[in-house]
Every structure is written in C-alpha cells, then in structure tokens.
C-alpha cells in the first residue's frame, strides 16, 4: 500500500497554495511515496531502546541574553522583496485565511 495517497498530496498542495495539475499529482504522489517508504525503513530498525530523536546534537538550553542587537534598515529589509509600498512588504491578497494565533 502506498504511504501517501493522491488525495493527501492534493490536500498538502492546497495547504501550501501550490497549483498542482492532475498529472503532477500522480508524479508527486509516486515520488513522495518513495521518500516516505525509505524513511519508514529507518523506523523498522529503531528498537524500543532507541528514543525518537529530533536533534542530532545532545544540547539543551542554548539561550541568549535579552540584549538589543542592531538589525537591518527598512531599505535593507525591503531590498530583496519583489514589491514594497509605504515601507511595507507588498504581497497579493490571501483569501480564506486569518492570523495564526
């Protein structure tokens, strides 16, 4: 059985606002399936005594002091933006969405 369905790929594409054609759905579903199956093989090797790992280095509490560091000027910040207006990044409207938090 495939690790990811064509419908799941379509759903992911919608969440990511990617326009994916019907043919592309088939292609990507196949490719993603290969990736997922490969990763699943790692899961088979992992025994009960191996905890899941999210970070490859055994570090915790890497923190910085609460001290202001100079950042970018608005000109620098906007220099890589495709479009700007009123010193703000200008982007196409996004429908059906609202702020995250």
């Amino acid at each position: 059985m495939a690790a990811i369905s064509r419908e799941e790929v379509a759903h992911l594409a919608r969440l990511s606002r990617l326009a994916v054609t019907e043919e592309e759905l088939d292609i990507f579903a196949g490719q993603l399936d290969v990736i997922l199956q490969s990763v699943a093989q790692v899961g088979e090797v992992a025994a009960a005594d191996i905890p899941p790992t999210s970070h490859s280095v055994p570090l915790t509490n890497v923190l910085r002091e609460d001290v202001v560091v100079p950042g970018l000027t608005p000109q620098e910040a906007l220099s890589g933006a495709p479009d700007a207006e009123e010193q703000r990044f200008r982007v196409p409207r996004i429908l059906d969405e609202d702020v995250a938090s």
Partner: protein
Amino acid sequence: MTTTLPAYDDVVARYEPVIGLETHVELGTNTKMFCGCPTDFGGEPNTRVCPVCLGLPGSLPVANKAAIEATIRIGLALNCSIAEWCRFARKNYFYPDMPKNFQISQYDEPLCVDGYLDVEVNGETVRIGIERVHLEEDTGKTLHVGGATGRIHGATESLVDYNRAGIPLVEIVTKPIPGTGALAPEVARAYVTELRDVIRSLGVSDVRMEEGSLRCDVNTSLNRPGQEWGTRTETKNVNSLRSVERAVRSEMLRQASVLDAGGRITQETRHFHEDSGDTTPGRSKETATDYRYFPEPDLVPLAPDAAWVAELKAALPELPRLHRRRLQLQWGLSDLDMQSVLNAGAVELIEATVAAGATPAAARKWWLGELSRRANEAGIELADVGATPSQVAELQGLVDAGKLNDKLARVVLEGVVGGEGSPTEIMNNRNLEVVSDTGALTAAVDEAIVANPDVADKVRSGKVAAAGALVGAVMKTTRGQADAKTVRELILERLGVQS
C-alpha cells in the same frame, strides 16, 4: 438572518454553558523571542527587523533567556508544573503575517502545564483550571489595501510590517469551565481581569488590551442539563474586559436561538464586534493536522533545571489576591467596600495615593467619588482619568492643612483633571485658597449679622440652628473660600452664644 434572541434568564434556565479562554500576552522583554531586535510598541514599519525575524535563508533563531524566565514565572504564579524537558514546534501555515511560512510555537510539549487560578465572582471563589502555558512568537501586522473597507474581503493586496513578528508571546489556555451557569460571562471577565493583574504583578508585560499586549479568545458552548457538552465556537477580536463578558453572553444567546430552532452549532471561529456586541462567523478552523506541527529543528530542547525553577519560584512577588487581602485589612474595609474598590479598578490607585501620604479613607473618597464619576461619564478607565495618585495625595494634604475646603478641593481637582497643573499651582493661580485671614473673615461675619438682624436675634435667643443662614451669607461673600466650620464658630462667638 433575522431571529429574535431569547431572553438571557430563559437561556440559562434551559442550557448550561461551558466556557474556555485562550489568552495571548506579549512579553515586555527588550528583544524579540529569537533575535536581538527591539520590541517597543509602534515605530515606523519594518524598522525593528533582522534576517532572523524576516526568515531570511541561513539565519538561525536563539531563544531569549528573559522570555523563558518570564514564561516559567507566569506558569509558577498560575500553580503549574514546569516541564523538565520540552521543545519548540513549527506551526506551518500559508499567510504572510509570518515571513517564514511558519510560526515557532509549542505544541504537545508546553513549558508549563496543569495549574489553576482562583478568581472571585460575587464573593465566591471560582477555581479556573489552567491547561497549559506555552511560548511562541507574535506575528507581523498586515494592512489590506485596494478594497473599500480595509478588511481582507475585497482587498487586492496586503502590506506587511514585521516589527511585531517574533515578539515573545505567551499563550495561556484554561481547561473547560463548566458549572458556572448564568455567571459564565462574569466568570470569564473575572478570570481575564485576575490573569491580567497576576501578570502585571510579575512585571513581565504591560498587559494593555487596547494596545494588544493582552488578547483574548473566548470559547463557548451550550448543552441541555445532564447531556454532553455542546459544540464550541471560538470568538476572537475580544479587546476589552467588558467585551469578554459581552462576547460570552451574546454567543450564549445566539447558540440558544440556533439550538431552539432545532439547528446545530458549527465549530468555527467567530469575530466579536465592539459596536454591536455580537459575533459573526470567520473562517472554519484548520485542524491541527493541517498545521503540520513538528519539532523545530533550529532550536535545541529546553530543560529548565530544578534549581533554576526553585530560584524563580522563591522570587515571585506577592500575588494580587493575597495583596488585596492584606490591603483590605490595612484599610479596614468590609468585603462589600473592598468589592466596590475592585469594581472601580481603584486598588493600585488608592494604594499609590496612600503611599504618597493620604489616609486610606481620603484616598478612597476621591478615587471612588469624584474621579470614578468622571471616568464613568467619559467612558474611560479610572487610571486614565487625568489625575495621578500623587496629585490626589497633594490635594488631600491641602484640605488637611485647612487651605482648601471640600468644595474648593473639588474645583481644584477639576483643574487637575483638565491638565492645569498640580493642586497647589491651581489653588494659587486661581486664587482658591480658603480665606483664613481672621480679620477679613470677621468683617464678613459682622457684615452678615448686620444684614440679617432677624436671624441674628434668633441665634442670640438660643436657636443655634438658625446660624446656618448666616454661614451661607458669609460663604457667599467669600465665594465659598471660607471654612464653614470656622465661620460658624466665629458667628456664634460674635453673637455671644456657646456652641
């Protein structure tokens, strides 16, 4: 859709509400959560940004120690357990308020869990369970242009300012709160008020709802008694304490009318409207799986050691509830009197006025009397009425020194509120000081006696109460600038009557 809403009493007789609150608090750290950009409110667009908070390739976040500490302190003040080990998580979504296309948040491993906050409603203590307290980063501000209304609908473009993106944001989530019945709206308000006071006492945020440093989402559901909890809605855009109460109430009424008509409640986000006090539907919520949370690979786990947590716990300030109890004892107030001080939002103001030298009784008189009346009339918070605790203490000092009587003090206070200066300056500039020159007063008294021979005779014959008319006459000639008690004594003395 035009449906007549049922009466509130009727709704709570037939349905039981369950509420829940999600509160976001912007921390008052100097810098953002994961970079060294400053966090000051306002500022020209995109002047407080750097490669990290703009999500530029190759930049790496590093967590702000002060923000972690502040969150642990909030958790401790809310009686939570502090995680011994936890991680940040990526919340993925497609919206330009975060330039990275994700927000760094916490998901299944929050920093603080399972606490409570006791709040008082109508003299009863209600224990509100705290599900979790976690740390995340705030989003940027989007301005929708091209449409007629500035709202996203009809807009063709969005302009984005990332000054706010990355400011540390603490999310505090309650457990569901059942069993509050008709009091549900008041409980919601009391909780947010108490939470605000707790966080303010910790000094970790200025918690100003109007500036958005404290934001609240309100979950509401209704069920028939004895039945399972109903489907909940989440109301956003609730930007004042009063709105918290109104939002719960209006959502209870709306849901009851839907249920009464045999309808079903849709799980959705609704927007609260300050002007009408009702809610309208927003987007249907993405499910948690749609956010594709996963552990943030660019940040290592947090593992607050027990010694650090113990140190932070030992340094917690006296919490507002205990603080208020202590003040109530010091001020000698009944529960009812203390409640009216609380309702007026005057605790800190009175405390500061007492610290500036006034007696508790005098401080309470000014803040709950004249100044509360003005704040109510103007529809503003008492703290914003235009007089400071030190000015009120100064005013009372002038009264105590006999330089102002009660009536003149009110006139001076009006000047203070109007921004004319300090009480002493206003008294001097407007020549409002009580006439204490005995010579001038005696002359005014004699004049009044001569002008009212009948009254004077009555007083001489022992009808001391009649002296009031003479006091009135003297007050009139001195334009109210005499101390009525002194005037009365002088009159009786001049007429040879023992007071």
